[in-house]
């Protein structure tokens, strides 16, 4: 549905987006991750046709965003960053206006507005003026606007920004549900969001894609992925450590806490041995008569990976 090829954007000398390519198919939810200023919003603005690109190609549902602007734009629903709204309208009037602009047939506008209001839990503020809304309601009103014409493609720039935990949960579920029938891109810097609702994630830093994969694949890339967290007693920590290091599966032991009578450590596997590692440690514990209080495989966390690969220089 969305195809982006070699996309670049310069603002004067500054390169905001540098040669990015990706595709999103129907039924996919693509998460855009990256630190502030990484080029997420700029990329989304180009995909929605708001900003013209400096180089590259974008097609949405087969229509080029620059050459067949109107055909491409009519397939897209867009929630801009900060959820802008016309502050002098009521929620219902605003949605009605958007439905008309989005070419919803006149006889279906009422139904479309009702549906969007239900989907985004706006019943309570339906007749309220937009400038009296709280941030959460403003955000959801803008979200309602983006889905009012039931678009094939949804582009959401930080859709859960400013929502309370319950609302965040609702919006994530909503994205996940809609992702079954639409192609969705959404940006966030909340990593659990990616795990909760994305089928694929891209990490962008300084305008470049630096990681691309399913949340599980990305997690596996984290440094601690496959490591075993161990808390055991029965021997002095140095002794346990020595025994652990003797194992063929172990690359290194990262001691987190040591005492006369025990150890808390992260045991890193040798390459390709991560599957055998927990068993080997367990066998060791049994043979040495150790008491194991905690033994678990660390999945590798997205925020770890995120911090590792987007460690930006402070001067820019």
């Amino acid at each position: 549905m969305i195809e982006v090829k070699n996309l670049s954007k310069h603002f004067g000398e500054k390169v905001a987006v540098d040669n990015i390519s990706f595709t999103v198919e129907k039924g996919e939810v693509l998460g855009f991750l990256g630190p502030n200023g990484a080029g997420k919003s700029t990329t989304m603005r180009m995909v929605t046709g708001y900003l013209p690109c400096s180089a590259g190609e974008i097609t949405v549902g087969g229509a080029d965003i620059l050459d067949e602007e109107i055909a491409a734009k009519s397939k897209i629903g867009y929630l801009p960053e900060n959820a802008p709204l016309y502050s002098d309208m009521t929620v219902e009037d605003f949605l009605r206006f958007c439905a008309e602009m989005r070419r919803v047939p006149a006889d279906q506008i009422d139904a479309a507005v009702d549906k969007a209001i239900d989907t985004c839990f706006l019943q309570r503020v339906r007749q309220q003026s937009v400038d009296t809304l709280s941030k959460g309601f403003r955000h959801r009103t803008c979200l309602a606007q983006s889905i009012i014409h039931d678009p094939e493609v949804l582009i959401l720039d930080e859709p859960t920004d400013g929502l309370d935990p319950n609302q965040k949960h609702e919006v994530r579920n909503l994205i996940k549900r809609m992702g079954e029938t639409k192609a969705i891109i959404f940006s966030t810097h909340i990593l659990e969001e990616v795990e909760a609702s994305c089928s694929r994630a891209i990490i962008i830093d300084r305008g470049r894609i630096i990681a691309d994969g399913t949340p599980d694949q990305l997690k596996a890339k984290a440094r601690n992925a496959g490591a075993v967290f161990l808390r055991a007693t029965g021997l002095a920590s140095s002794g346990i450590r020595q025994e652990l290091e003797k194992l063929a599966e172990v690359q290194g032991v990262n001691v987190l806490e040591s005492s006369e009578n025990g150890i808390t450590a992260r045991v890193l596997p040798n390459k390709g041995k991560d599957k055998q590692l927990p068993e080997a440690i367990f066998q060791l514990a049994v043979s040495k008569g150790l008491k194991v209080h905690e033994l678990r495989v660390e999945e590798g966390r997205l925020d770890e990976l995120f911090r590792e690969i987007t460690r930006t220089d402070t001067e820019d």
Partner: protein
Amino acid sequence: MEATVALLLNFAIPAVIVTAIFIALLLFALPREVRTIFKREVKSYFNSPIAYVCVVIFLLISNGITFWFGGLLESGEASLYVSYFQYLPWYFVVVAPAVGMRLWSEEQRLGTMELMLTMPIAPWHAIVGKYLAAGVVIFAMLVLSFPIVWVINYLGNPDNGVIMAGFVATFLTALCFLAVTSVVSAFTRSQIVALLISIGICLLLWLGGLQPVSQAVTSLKGGWLVFWPVLKFINGIGILPHFSELAKGVLGFRDIIFFLTFIAFCLFSTAVVLRVKRA
């Protein structure tokens, strides 16, 4: 009483109906998106105090000046040009930017421009829709200044055709100022900046056509090397000569073309500015 009825029947009602039909036809001929934006903007104008404030201030000043300053009653002349229409564009130098200052600066400040321009519309749909809505506010001002026509008809026997021409000329001039404001507001997200700069440019456009400037252009003839072409240019696009011809009842084709070209050029420039700003 009879005079009032006659005036209503012969002048006011036809004038308003014709203009309204003209605007309706124009809107009907334009795409649906333009009408949708137009409707929203008109509502927005009349939901906020700005339209009312502008209308009331305009009516107070324009009528006040006509009687005290323009000497309508003392002149003993059954015409409105000298005492009324001559001054009207001066108010619109301020009032038209006040009406139009929010056109694009507000969209940029709220961020709604991003919504508007990612909808499946061409940018000119939005530019024209918003511009026409602001034009309606100006139109409302002129319609509401009708009592002055009644006064002059009550006092004497004016040529209502010429008065009509005066309104048309004023409307077109105000629309030019509004079009300038549309361009300026595309540059900035601050309404105040848009207002002040627009007033400056409109003033220049208005003053540029004044007699002394024209005289200076002829008498200097290439003197003051750099300055002269600038002066000549400003004089050339000065609105005043076109206004006064029209307002005196000379329905010149060239003047009408001047106004329409000027407006079209400004709206086109608005599109260019919005495009360049995004690139």
